[in-house]
């Protein structure tokens, strides 16, 4: 009897020691991983470090249970089934998390970059665990699941801060000679809001209208709407109607 | 009303976790800010881990307490700011709630915390006498140098913070001059190390400077005043000054 009690006590002590050692190993691993991965971002590093810590603790618990000679088979089978069910039902979540790993480590883009992916184009406001926030040129905030970036090619347009946007101005019932100087004047007025020289790409006179193509070097692409409105207002004040595409 | 708790701190890794955790437990507290004075220990890391916003104060010149308080005010978003020492051993959410209660219920706009503790030497020997001389209405405060204060955030943006130890008495005088409603609240016993005597010289100097600077600016100190005041004092050997001030 006393031998049995002694045996049980020894197992409990060993199991307890395993838990304690595992606890310290998991904490040390968490801190080390956080430090090593911090160059990819503090919140990302924290997340991966925490997942690793939980994983190590889980291993420790399983080993401790086996030392106590408890039957782990049933528990393991149940745990595997539950894990598979969670993975299957939450595969999108898992895919999004995996995509975050790709984004953070491979860096196809970073925060504040201007990107185009699928139908979404705009500025990256924040990269999170499951999704990325993109602010479009209309000022709308689009939440894009990270798995989207594995399905569609990402075009990163941020190598230069300047974007050259082309606008088509249509002047119904006007002549080339009267439109050209006006367009030059308008571009001159817009210059303080642009980065660099705006350009008249072409002015073509057609039967019943004049079409002008201009290129505006801008930094904040959300400004486009405002610039278009400014062009329209400026032309209207000169008594000239315009359509802008 | 949202409350922001601000801890100016330096090399306080032993206290920071508990301080931040305790502050978050207080009612209405939505953010805790730690303004670090250039710690060489794990103060910043531990504060961040507990969910505090952390910034290193903009200027590390000693003592820099006022700069830390100013930076804390600038970073905060709460309607009410509470400043506390991070190394109060018996800190509870109660400290925060007692300081913010008069503001939240509309009784005051600025609260000075007072506490049961042995009388502060700089308070009794420097601050109180000078306040009695130049700002007698503020002489009623038991602890005019108390760093446990709370106030409406917009008020802190209206004043200039002293850079060093004179910040607390400076704020008290400046708010008084602005006509802010000020109350003093007893926050109970504060278990906190007092500074050794040799460290008090700088503190006393800065406190005296903060008060005298304001007295000069407010035209409270001038030659006529000094002559009038000194005539009331028991005769001392003034030597060449016996005839009075020129």
């Amino acid at each position, binding site marked *: 009897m006393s031998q049995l009690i002694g045996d049980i006590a020894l197992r409990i002590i060993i199991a307890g020691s395993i838990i304690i050692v595992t606890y310290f190993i998991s904490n040390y691993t968490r801190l080390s991983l956080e430090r090593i991965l911090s160059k990819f971002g*503090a919140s990302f590093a924290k997340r991966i470090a925490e997942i690793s810590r939980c994983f190590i603790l889980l291993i420790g618990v399983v080993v401790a249970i086996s030392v106590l000679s408890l039957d782990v088979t049933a528990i393991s089978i149940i745990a595997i089934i539950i894990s598979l069910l969670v993975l299957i039902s939450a595969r999108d979540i898992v895919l999004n998390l995996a995509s975050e790993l790709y984004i953070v480590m491979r860096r196809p883009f*970073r*925060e*504040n970059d*201007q990107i185009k992916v699928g139908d979404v184009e705009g*500025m990256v*406001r*924040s990269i999170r665990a499951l999704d990325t926030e993109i*602010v479009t040129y209309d*000022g709308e905030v689009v939440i894009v699941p990270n798995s989207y970036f594995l399905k569609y090619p990402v075009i990163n347009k941020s*190598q230069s*801060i300047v974007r050259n946007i082309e606008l088509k101005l249509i002047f119904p019932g006007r002549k080339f000679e009267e439109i050209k100087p006006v367009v030059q004047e308008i571009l001159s007025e817009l*210059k*303080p*809001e*642009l*980065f660099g020289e705006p350009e008249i790409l072409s002015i073509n006179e057609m039967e019943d209208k004049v079409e002008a193509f201009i290129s505006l070097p*801008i*930094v*904040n*692409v*959300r*400004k486009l*709407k*405002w610039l278009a409105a400014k062009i329209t207002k400026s032309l209207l004040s000169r008594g000239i109607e315009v359509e802008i595409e | 009303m949202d409350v922001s708790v601000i801890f100016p701190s330096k090399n306080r890794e032993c206290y920071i976790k508990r301080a931040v955790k305790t502050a978050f437990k207080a009612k209405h507290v939505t953010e805790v800010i730690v*303004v*670090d004075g*250039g710690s060489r220990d794990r103060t910043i890391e531990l504060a961040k881990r507990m969910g505090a916003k*952390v*910034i*290193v*104060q*903009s*200027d*590390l010149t000693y003592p820099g307490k006022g700069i830390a308080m*100013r*930076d*804390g*005010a*600038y*970073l905060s978003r709460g309607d009410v700011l509470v400043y506390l020492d991070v190394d109060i051993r018996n800190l509870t959410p109660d400290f925060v709630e007692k300081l913010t209660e008069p503001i939240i219920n509309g009784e005051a706009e600025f609260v000075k915390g007072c506490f049961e503790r042995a009388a502060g030497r700089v308070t009794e020997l420097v601050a109180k006498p000078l306040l009695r001389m130049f700002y007698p209405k503020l002489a009623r405060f038991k602890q005019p140098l108390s760093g446990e204060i709370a106030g409406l955030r*917009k008020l802190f*943006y209206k004043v200039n913070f002293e850079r060093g130890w004179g910040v607390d008495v400076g704020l008290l005088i400046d708010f008084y001059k602005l006509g802010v409603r000020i109350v003093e609240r007893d926050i109970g016993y504060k278990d906190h190390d007092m500074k050794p005597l040799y460290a008090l010289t700088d503190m006393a100097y800065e406190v005296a400077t903060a008060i005298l600077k304001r007295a000069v600016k407010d035209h409270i100190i001038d030659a006529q005043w000094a002559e009038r005041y000194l005539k009331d004092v028991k005769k001392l050997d003034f030597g060449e000054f016996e005839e009075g001030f020129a």
Partner: protein
Amino acid sequence: MRTVLIGGGSHSAYFAINAVREIDPYGRLVVIEFTSEKVDVLSRMFPFAELIRLDIDEVDSYVRSNSSIIDVVITATESDALNLRYCKMSKENAIPIIISIINNPLNAKIFADEGITYVINPYDFIHRELAEILEADVNILYRFHKTDILLASIKISKDALLHYLRKEIGKSHDLSAIFVSKTGEVTNSIDKVGLGWKAYLIGTRLTVEQILKNVRWL
């Protein structure tokens, strides 16, 4: 482009305003300060800029309501807390370029952790200037913010080092170097280089960092 500089009355702001004017001479520059006195002084110093006096909280509303037309926000106040606050607010409002000139170098990591991409630390120069003047063995001269290029200098003090550099420069397509002797002779050919010369390397960050790491072991 439209640049908003917050905290025009600080030392760093002075240099920033002049730099922006030089880079974008026709652009719109708005300078925000918090006191009328500073606005008055700055308007005389910088007649080309639009000076606005705002309260601390009002700056948030100003940037928010103009966020669709502001191209650049530069925070250059005397308080890093205020700089951080305005950077975060600008980020929330999708300002394309946000630059902060910090006061305390210890805040550089805090700003980076908050996702502020462009942080200018005016004290960065102290180390590299001293290293250059006092002829340190290795000196990282400049990290380019927008591209992954690194500029560094290495003093060639050992044969093993010269041999190693010869091998690396020969095989790398993303690395260039020029060499300067003690007497000031300059060449881009490593074959003419001997001990005591200084190599100035420019290349991708990974390549140059790897070389610097290996050099420390030689």
